[in-house]
């Protein structure tokens, strides 16, 4: 019994310490004197790896999710004779919820895990330590560009996801199921509001980008520098960032759309 309590206390304390270290990593790598000339090429390279190379999975899954939404929406709405509302349904669910959330989950799996593994391997092969030896702060040289790249890429990926998804939905609804194109788009435009829906979706995507990249980079930086430690850290990245995205999504939705 006592041992159980002890273990519980130990676990809680080490979690707390990890959260503290995560905050430290974030602050130390972001609140540094800006060196645009050094940082910009590094950030560009990371945007390429984190964002550009994630485009394929984002576009393909966005298209399929939009098509599924169109198909499902149609089969439900056609019972009520209001199948024109399918555009509204597809657009609202994508812009408000699915685009930020699914893009963030895919981003965590595609880019977050890679970030963790990369930084973890750098730590295991003592590259971070040698950087420190030659007087370069690894937080600023390695961690900061990856953080910035993640922050920048995530909203862009979410927007692309939404657009491709709506295109996929219109492909199914208008071209295959034969809903009148005019009412499909008119219904959508009438119900989607720029500030309430589009902007809130983008705010969500920014928040998710910060959280996912932060978790990924921190888990890599903080991992036990062995091959087992790296594998555990990569798993933790995907699990924690998925949970964080879904939990945060509820909070953000309640703040934006709820009457709280």
């Amino acid at each position: 019994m006592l041992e159980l309590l002890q273990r519980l206390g130990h676990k809680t304390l080490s979690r707390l310490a990890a959260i503290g270290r995560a905050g430290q990593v974030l602050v130390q790598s972001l609140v540094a004197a800006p060196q645009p000339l050094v940082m910009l090429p590094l950030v560009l390279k990371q945007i390429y790896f984190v964002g550009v190379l994630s485009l394929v999975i984002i576009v393909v899954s966005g298209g399929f999710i939009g098509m599924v939404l169109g198909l499902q929406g149609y089969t439900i709405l056609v019972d009520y004779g209001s199948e024109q509302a399918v555009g509204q349904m597809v657009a609202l669910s994508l812009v408000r919820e699915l685009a930020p959330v699914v893009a963030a989950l895919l981003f965590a799996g595609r880019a977050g895990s890679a970030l963790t593994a990369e930084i973890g391997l750098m730590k295991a092969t003592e590259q971070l330590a040698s950087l420190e030896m030659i007087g370069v702060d690894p937080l600023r040289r390695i961690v900061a560009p990856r953080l910035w790249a993640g922050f920048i890429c995530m909203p862009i990926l979410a927007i692309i996801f939404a657009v491709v998804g709506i295109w996929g939905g219109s492909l199914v609804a208008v071209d295959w199921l034969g809903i009148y194109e005019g009412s499909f788009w008119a219904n959508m435009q009438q119900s989607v509001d720029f500030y309430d829906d589009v902007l809130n979706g983008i705010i969500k995507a920014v928040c998710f980008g910060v959280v996912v990249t932060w978790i990924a980079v921190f888990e890599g930086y903080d991992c036990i520098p062995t091959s087992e430690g790296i594998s555990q850290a990569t798993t933790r990245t995907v699990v924690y960032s998925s949970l964080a995205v879904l939990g945060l999504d509820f909070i953000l939705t309640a703040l934006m759309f709820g009457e709280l």
Partner: protein
Amino acid sequence: MRMRTVEIGVGAFMLAGILALVVLVLNVSGLNLSEQTGGYKVYARFDNIGGLTPRAKVAMSGVQIGQVTAIRIDRDMLMAEVEMEIFNDVDYLTTDSSASILTAGLLGEQYIGLVPGAEDEILGSGDYIRDTQSALVLEELIGKFLFNKVSE
């Protein structure tokens, strides 16, 4: 050379993001950045607007000729006042046109349907449409029906 592909890739990525945002703004949310899209304002008072919302379409014979820009309560008449913007090339709305709030389909969007009258004078900017017909509210209809049944 390697750095060059990275730069081009990132540039294309950013451009795709901005383009996607523009598509989202213009095509999906139908946001009008320029308020003066070319149209004149016409007003109409309704007893009940039902579920009409701003940006609903204004149609004649089912063809869109404008959109609702604002809805408010007229404090003097205690009625709903709807402000609509009619496209500039629509110059055939007579002063005795009638406006009614209609529904597209059973559960569809609500819109304003205009029917021109027989006068020679044309509606101009700031004019009011006198002849209006409110939205069909299902509860009122059922209420009337029940009332008639009882009184029979």
